[in-house]
C-alpha cells in the first residue's frame, strides 16, 4: 500500500488508522514525498495512537539538529503538530532551542509551534510567554507576523510585552507577509486604544458638555462647577503622540494591498484610531474591494454599513458604487440597500428614490421587500420626501405580487403613525385590501391601523371587525391578537355597534389553542367590559388603549455595531465570538509614552530591501522638481518678456540662437527661450520614436513647436497658453526633469555672457577648464540622457543626471581610498574631445594621495578589453606627493557599447584591478561644426535621432545610434 492511497482515504474522511504501525515505519524513508505523506498521516492519527506515534519522535529529534535550516524547521513543525501530551517537555525544549536558532525561518517555525503547544497543554503558558517575549524582540520580518499571531493566541492581554517592540513592529509592518500584517494591525489597534489619547477628544468633550448641561440637576450643579475647570483643562489642544502618528503613517500604504483582509484591517484601524479628518481615505480602498468576490463584498458591505452610520460623509462621493445590479446575489443587494439608505440625505434623496423605484420592479421579491423597507426608512428620516414616498407606496398596494403589497402595508402603517390625520383615505384603501391580502404581518398591520384610527374611519371599522370575527378561527396568531385589539378599541369608541361583535370575538379567543390569545382575551374582557367587580382600571381603559403612541423609529440594524472591532467575526455576527478581544476605550490620560523608548533605535536593515529605491533610480528628479518650483517665477518672467520676439525666434530656433546671443546681453533671455524650446524638441523626439514617423526639420518650426509644446508638462502649457494651439493628453511627467533645466541654465549663461562672450563663440573655441566650459554641455547631455532613457534599454546603470547647481560633472569612483590603501581615484567623462584619437571618449581621472608617503609610478597595465575596444593610456605619473592630487586624461574607445573597460592601475608597490563602465549618455563624439555646416546637417537628417544635433553648443555632439534599437510588439512598446 502506498502512502498515497492512505492519504486519499484520509481526504475522503475514511478511517485509515489501523494501518498506523505500517506507516510510521516509513518515517525514516529517504524519499521526500513519502516522508511528507507519512507526516500528514502521522499528524492526523497520532492523537488516536499515542504509543505508536512515540516511535517516530526520535527521527524528529534528530532532524532538529540537522545543519540545514529547512530540515530543522520542518522537523519542529511536525513534532509540534503531534498532539500527544507525553511529548510536551520535548516540544517545550525544542521550541526554546529553535527560538534562539540562527535562522529566522526556524525561529518563525518556533513561533508557529507556540500556539500548538499552548492548546495541547495550557499549563506551559508562562514558559511560552517567555519565548514569545524573546521572539517579539526579533528584528526580522519573517518572524514578526508569526510571533504576533502566537501572542494573540496565548497572551493577548499582556500588552506590556509590546511596548518595547511597538516602533519596530510599525516600521517592519510593510515588509511582513500579508497574513502577518493582518494580525499585527489588529493587535496594534487594540494596543493603540490603550496607550494613546482619543484624537477626536475635543469633539466628544463638546458633546459631553452639552449633555451635562441638559441633565444637570440642582444638587449636581455644585459638583459640576468643580468638574468644569477640570474638563476645560483637559480641552487643551490635543497633540497626537508621535507613536500614534507613526502607526497611522505606516499602515496607510497597506490600503493599496491586493489582499482584502489587509485593506480591511487598515480600514478598521483608521476608523477606530484616526482623527475624523483622516478617516476618509479608507473609503476609496473599501469601495475598491467591492469589485472582488461576492463573499468579500458581503463582509466589506457589512462594515461599510456600520461605518456609514457614523461617518456618512465618507462614502457619499461613492454613492453610485453602491447601486444595485440585477445579477448581484440577494444578500449583497440587501446590504447595498442598507448602505444607500444610510447615505441618503436631503441632497441626494431624489436620485436614491429614483434608483429605488427601479429596484421595486425587480424579479427578486425578497429584494423588492427590502427596497420597500428602505423607502420607508428614507421617508421617516427625511421629512421632505415623506409624502412622495407614501404616495409611491400606496401605488404599490395595487401591485400584483402579494409580498410586495404586504411589505408596503407594513411600511405604510409605520409612516401613517407619524401623521394619521391627513391620510384617512389611505386607511380606507387599506381596509379594503384586507379581503385580499393573506400575509399575516400585513393583515395584522391593517387591523392595527384601523383600530388605532377608528375615529377617522368610523363607518368602515365595525364592518372590518365583522368580517374578521367570521374568519377569526382561521387566522394566524399575530392576526388574532390584532383582531382582539381592534375589537377592544372599537368597543371603547363605538360600543353601540360593536358590543356584540366584541363579545363574540372574546369568546372565540377564550377557547383558542394559543395561551397568549387566551390570556389577552381574559385581560381585555376584565378591562373593558364593565362589571360590578371591575376595579379602578376600567375607568382608564380608553386612555390605556387609545393613548397617543410614539411613532416607531426605523433604525438601521447596523446602528451601534461599531462597539465591536470592525472587520472582526463578532462584528459580522453582531454577537461576541469566542476569543474576541474587546476593543478597549480610550484612556482618560495617556500612559507614559517612554515605555516604548528603546535604548538604541536601530533602523532595520530589512526594511530597506523593499521600500528603498535602488541606486540606479536615484535620479535627481525629485531634487530637480523642487528646484523647478523655485525657478518658476523667473521662467515665467522670461516668457513674458520674450513674447514679442517669439515669432522671429521660432523661425530658426536652434541655429539662429547663437547669432542672437552674440547680439548682446539684452537678448539673453530671448536666447534662453530658444534654448528651452530645443529641449522641448528633443523631448518630442521621444514621442516620435514611438513609431510616429513625423518628418521634422527646423524649417517647419512652427509646426514642430506646437507639437513639442503639446507634449510638455502641464505647468508649462499653462504658461504658454498664448501660443498653445492644441493640447495633447499625453502629458508626461517624465519630461519634467528635462524641462526644468532651461531657466537655470539660461540664467547662468546670461551671466557668463556679460563677462565673456568667447565662451559661446565657436571660432574661438579652446579646451577650457572643465568646470567652466562644461556647463552647457552638461546641460545638453542631461537632456540627452533622459532622452536616451526613452530610447534604449540599457543593461547598465544609467548616468544619474545630477546637475548640481555648480554645474560640475558627476565623478565616479574608480578606487576607494581604503581599498587603494590611501590612494583614491575618481573619474569623470569630461565630454571634451580626446585630441589624439577622435573616436575615443575622454575620461578624466583624478588621483588623490591620502597617505603620508609619496606614491610613485602611477600607470596603467594589462588592459583587458572586449574585442574592438581600445584604450589610450595616460602618461605615467612619476610622483604623487602625500596629500596632493593630480588630474590626467585618458581615452577609451568603447565601440559604442556599454561594456566596461577593465585594466590594472599600478603604483610602485601595488596593482589594483579597476574598470570603467560608461553610462550611455556619455558615449558621445564631440564634433565641431560651423554654423553653416550645422544647418546643412540639420536639414539632411530627418530621423528622430538627428534631433539631438539641434542643441547648439560649443561642442556639438552627434550621437552614434548604432546600438539604439527599438521595436514595437503588439502595440508600441517603447524600449
Amino acid at each position, binding site marked *: 500500500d502506498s502512502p498515497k492511497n492512505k492519504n486519499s482515504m484520509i481526504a475522503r474522511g475514511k478511517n485509515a488508522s489501523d494501518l498506523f504501525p505500517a506507516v510510521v515505519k516509513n518515517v525514516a524513508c529517504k524519499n521526500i514525498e513519502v516522508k511528507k505523506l507519512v507526516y500528514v498521516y502521522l499528524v492526523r492519527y497520532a492523537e488516536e495512537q499515542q504509543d505508536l506515534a512515540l516511535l517516530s519522535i526520535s527521527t524528529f529529534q534528530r532532524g532538529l539538529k540537522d545543519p540545514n535550516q529547512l530540515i530543522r524547521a520542518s522537523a519542529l513543525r511536525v513534532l509540534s503538530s503531534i498532539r500527544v501530551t507525553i511529548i510536551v517537555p520535548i516540544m517545550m525544549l525544542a521550541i526554546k532551542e529553535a527560538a534562539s536558532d540562527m535562522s529566522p525561518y526556524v525561529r518563525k517555525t518556533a513561533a508557529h509551534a507556540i500556539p500548538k503547544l499552548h492548546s495541547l497543554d495550557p499549563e506551559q503558558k508562562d514558559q511560552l510567554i517567555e519565548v514569545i517575549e524573546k521572539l517579539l524582540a526579533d528584528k526580522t520580518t519573517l518572524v514578526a507576523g508569526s510571533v504576533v499571531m502566537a501572542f494573540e493566541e496565548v497572551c493577548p492581554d499582556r500588552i506590556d510585552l509590546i511596548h518595547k517592540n511597538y516602533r519596530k513592529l510599525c516600521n517592519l509592518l510593510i515588509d511582513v507577509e500579508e497574513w502577518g500584517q493582518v494580525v499585527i494591525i489588529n493587535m496594534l489597534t487594540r494596543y493603540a486604544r490603550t496607550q494613546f489619547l482619543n484624537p477626536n477628544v475635543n469633539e466628544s468633550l463638546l458633546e459631553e458638555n452639552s449633555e451635562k448641561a441638559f441633565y444637570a440637576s440642582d444638587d449636581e450643579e455644585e459638583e459640576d462647577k468643580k468638574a468644569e475647570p477640570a474638563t476645560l483643562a483637559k480641552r487643551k489642544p490635543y497633540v497626537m503622540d508621535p507613536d500614534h502618528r507613526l502607526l497611522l503613517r505606516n499602515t496607510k500604504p497597506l490600503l493599496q494591498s491586493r489582499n482584502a483582509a489587509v485593506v480591511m484591517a487598515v480600514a478598521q484601524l483608521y476608523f477606530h484610531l484616526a482623527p475624523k479628518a483622516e478617516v476618509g481615505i479608507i473609503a476609496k480602498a473599501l469601495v*475598491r474591494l467591492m469589485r472582488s468576490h461576492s463573499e468579500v463584498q458581503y463582509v466589506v458591505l457589512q462594515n461599510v454599513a456600520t461605518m456609514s452610520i457614523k461617518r456618512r460623509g465618507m462614502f457619499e462621493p461613492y454613492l*453610485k458604487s453602491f447601486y444595485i445590479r440585477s445579477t448581484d446575489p440577494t444578500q449583497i443587494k440587501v446590504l447595498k440597500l442598507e448602505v444607500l439608505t444610510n447615505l441618503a440625505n436631503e441632497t441626494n434623496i431624489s436620485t436614491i428614490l429614483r434608483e429605488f423605484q427601479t429596484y421595486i420592479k425587480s424579479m427578486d421579491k425578497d429584494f423588492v421587500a427590502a427596497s420597500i423597507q428602505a423607502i420607508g426608512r428614507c421617508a421617516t428620516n427625511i421629512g421632505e420626501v415623506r409624502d412622495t414616498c407614501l404616495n409611491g407606496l400606496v401605488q404599490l398596494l395595487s401591485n400584483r405580487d402579494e409580498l410586495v403589497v404586504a411589505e408596503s402595508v407594513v411600511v405604510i402603517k409605520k409612516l401613517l403613525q407619524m401623521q394619521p390625520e391627513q391620510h384617512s383615505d389611505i386607511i380606507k384603501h387599506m381596509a379594503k385590501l384586507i379581503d385580499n391580502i393573506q400575509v399575516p404581518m400585513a393583515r395584522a398591520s391593517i387591523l392595527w391601523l384601523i383600530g388605532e384610527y377608528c375615529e377617522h374611519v368610523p363607518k368602515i371599522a365595525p364592518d372590518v371587525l365583522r368580517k374578521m370575527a367570521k374568519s377569526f378561527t382561521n387566522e394566524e396568531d399575530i392576526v388574532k391578537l390584532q383582531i382582539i385589539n381592534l375589537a377592544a378599541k372599537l368597543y371603547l369608541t363605538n360600543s353601540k355597534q360593536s358590543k356584540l361583535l366584541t363579545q363574540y370575538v372574546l369568546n372565540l379567543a377564550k377557547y383558542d389553542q394559543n395561551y397568549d390569545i387566551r390570556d389577552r382575551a381574559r385581560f381585555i374582557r376584565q378591562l373593558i367590559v364593565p362589571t360590578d367587580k371591575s376595579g379602578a382600571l376600567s375607568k382608564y381603559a380608553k386612555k390605556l388603549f387609545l393613548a397617543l403612541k410614539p411613532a416607531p423609529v426605523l433604525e438601521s440594524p447596523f446602528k451601534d455595531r461599531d462597539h465591536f472591532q470592525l472587520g472582526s467575526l463578532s462584528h459580522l455576527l453582531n454577537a461576541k465570538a469566542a476569543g474576541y478581544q474587546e476593543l478597549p476605550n480610550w484612556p482618560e490620560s495617556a500612559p507614559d509614552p517612554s515605555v516604548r523608548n528603546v535604548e538604541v533605535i536601530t533602523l532595520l536593515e530589512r526594511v530597506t530591501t*523593499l521600500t528603498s529605491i535602488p541606486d540606479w533610480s536615484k535620479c535627481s528628479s525629485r531634487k530637480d522638481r523642487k528646484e523647478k518650483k523655485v525657478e518658476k517665477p523667473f521662467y515665467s518672467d522670461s516668457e513674458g518678456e520674450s513674447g514679442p520676439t517669439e515669432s522671429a525666434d521660432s523661425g530658426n530656433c536652434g541655429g539662429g540662437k547663437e547669432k542672437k546671443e552674440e547680439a548682446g546681453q539684452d537678448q539673453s533671455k530671448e536666447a534662453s527661450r530658444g534654448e528651452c524650446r530645443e529641449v522641448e524638441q528633443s523631448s518630442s523626439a521621444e514621442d516620435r520614436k514611438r513609431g510616429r514617423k513625423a518628418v521634422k526639420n527646423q524649417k517647419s518650426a512652427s509646426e514642430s513647436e506646437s507639437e513639442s509644446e503639446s507634449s510638455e508638462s502641464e505647468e508649462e502649457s499653462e504658461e504658454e497658453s498664448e501660443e498653445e494651439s492644441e493640447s495633447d493628453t499625453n502629458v508626461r*511627467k517624465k519630461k519634467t526633469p528635462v524641462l526644468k533645466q532651461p531657466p537655470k541654465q539660461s540664467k547662468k549663461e546670461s551671466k557668463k555672457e556679460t563677462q565673456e562672450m568667447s565662451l559661446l563663440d565657436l571660432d574661438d573655441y579652446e579646451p577650457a577648464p572643465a568646470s567652466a566650459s562644461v556647463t552647457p554641455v552638461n546641460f545638453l547631455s542631461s537632456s540627452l540622457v533622459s532622452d536616451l532613457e526613452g530610447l534604449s534599454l540599457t543593461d547598465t546603470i544609467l548616468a544619474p543626471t545630477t546637475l548640481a547647481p555648480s554645474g560640475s560633472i558627476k565623478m565616479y569612483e574608480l578606487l576607494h581610498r581604503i581599498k587603494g590603501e590611501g590612494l583614491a581615484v575618481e573619474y569623470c567623462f569630461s565630454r571634451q574631445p580626446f585630441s589624439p584619437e577622435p573616436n575615443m571618449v575622454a575620461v578624466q581621472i583624478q588621483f588623490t594621495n591620502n597617505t603620508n608617503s609619496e606614491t610613485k609610478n602611477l600607470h596603467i597595465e594589462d588592459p583587458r578589453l572586449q574585442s574592438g575596444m581600445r584604450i589610450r593610456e595616460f602618461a605615467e605619473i612619476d610622483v604623487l606627493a602625500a596629500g596632493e592630487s593630480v588630474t590626467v586624461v585618458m581615452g577609451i574607445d568603447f565601440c559604442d557599447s556599454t561594456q566596461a573597460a577593465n585594466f590594472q592601475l599600478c603604483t610602485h608597490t601595488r596593482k589594483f584591478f579597476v574598470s570603467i563602465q560608461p553610462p550611455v549618455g556619455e558615449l558621445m563624439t564631440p564634433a565641431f561644426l560651423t554654423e553653416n555646416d550645422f544647418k546643412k546637417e540639420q536639414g539632411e537628417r530627418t530621423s528622430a535621432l538627428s534631433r539631438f544635433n539641434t542643441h547648439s553648443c560649443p561642442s556639438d555632439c552627434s550621437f552614434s545610434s548604432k546600438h539604439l534599437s527599438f521595436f514595437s510588439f503588439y502595440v508600441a512598446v517603447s524600449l
Partner: protein
Amino acid sequence: MIHSLFLVNASGDIFLEKHWKSVVSRSVCDYFFEALERATEPENVPPVIPTPHHYLINVLRHRIYFVAVIQSEVPPLFVIEFLHRVVDTFQDYFGVCTEAAIKDNVVVVYELLEEMLDNGFPLATESNILKELIKPPTILRTVVNTITGSTNVGEQLPTGQLSVVPWRRTGVKYTNNEAYFDVIEEIDAIIDKSGSTITAEIQGVIDACVKLTGMPDLTLSFMNPRLLDDVSFHPCVRFKRWEAERILSFIPPDGNFRLLSYHVSSQNLVAIPVYVKHNISFREGSSQGRFELTLGPKQTMGKAVESVLVSSQLPRGVLNANLNPSQGTYTFDPVTKLLSWDVGKINPQKLPSLKGSMSLQAGASKPDENPTINIQFKIQQLAISGLKVNRLDMYGEKYKPFKGIKYMTKAGKFQVRT
C-alpha cells in the same frame, strides 16, 4: 485560526476534508447544508454561518463550496481571502478547479494544503514558493513519475521562503527571456431605460507573464499615470517609488501574476462602447409579448467590438420565445427563463438585431417586472480609459528581454435596464 476545510460539491457531498488541528467531525457541515437548503440560489448562502461551537466560513467557486471551520475570533476576510487563494492555487496547478481535477490530484492537493497552512495560520501562499516545494503535475511528469517512481515533490529544499523577495524563486533560467503585460480594463455600467448612463466606472488590471532569467528589476512607467485613481499592487511593487514618481518598480515573480489592479478616477467620463435599442413589451390581456433588441457600436475609438454576448433573465410568466436574430445564435431556456444571444462581432454597417415574440402563460396577467439586459463584449488593442504604458526597463541583468504589451477592454458588469 482555520481549523478544518471541507470541500462540498454542487450536489451537497463532502468530497475532501483536511484538518490542521484536532479533527472536527464532518457533521459540523450539517449547519452548512441547512443554510444551503434555505438559500434560493447557490450564491445566496451566507458566507459566515455560526454554529454552537464553530463558525463556518465558505466561499463558492467553480460550483464547489470551500467550507472552513473556525473556532474562535478571526477576521472573516482573512479566511475568505485565504480560501480564494487556495482556489487560485488549485487553478494554477491543475488548470481548472473542478471536483474531478481535485479528486484526480488528491495527493498534490493534500500536499499543497499542508504547506499553505500550519496550525491554521497561512505559511506559504505564494505560488512561486509552492511550485518550488511541489511541482505542478503535467502529463509528461505524470508519465515520467509512473515509470521512474519519482515524485512531484521538489527534490531540492525551497529557499524561496528564506529570501527577502519571497515571491520570486531563485535560480530561474530561460533561453527566451520575455515579459508580457496585458492591460485589461473592464467597464462596469448601468444604463437606464432611455439609454443614459446611470453609473459607469472602469476597473483595470495589469496581468503579467514574466519569464526572465535571474533577478531582474523592472520599472514600468505610464504615459498618463494620473488616470489611475486607486491602485492595489502585488507585494513586489515598491510603494514609495510609486508615491514619489508614479513609476512601478519591482522584482517580478516568476510566471503569471497580477501586477496591479486599478480604478480609473470617476471624474473622467467613461466612454460607453455599445448602445442598445430595446423594446420589450407585454400587452395586457394577450398572451403575446414583443421583443426587439438592436445593438450598435458607439465611442469605440475605431476598434471593432467583438465576442458580444447578450443575456437577459425574462419574467417568469414567459413560456417561450420565438425570435429571429440577424446574426449569431440565440438560446432560450424555458426552465430558468434565461435568454442568451451570442452575437459575435458587431458590424457597424449592419447592426445586429434580435426580433420576435414571446408567448406568455395563458391567462396569466402581464408581468410587471422589466428584464435587465446584460452585455458582454471585448475590444482588442484598446484600453478604454486611454491608459498607455510608456516604457519598460530592466536593470540588474545583462540580457535583452523580449517585451510586449497588450491592451484589451471588456465589459464587466454591464447592464441595461429596460
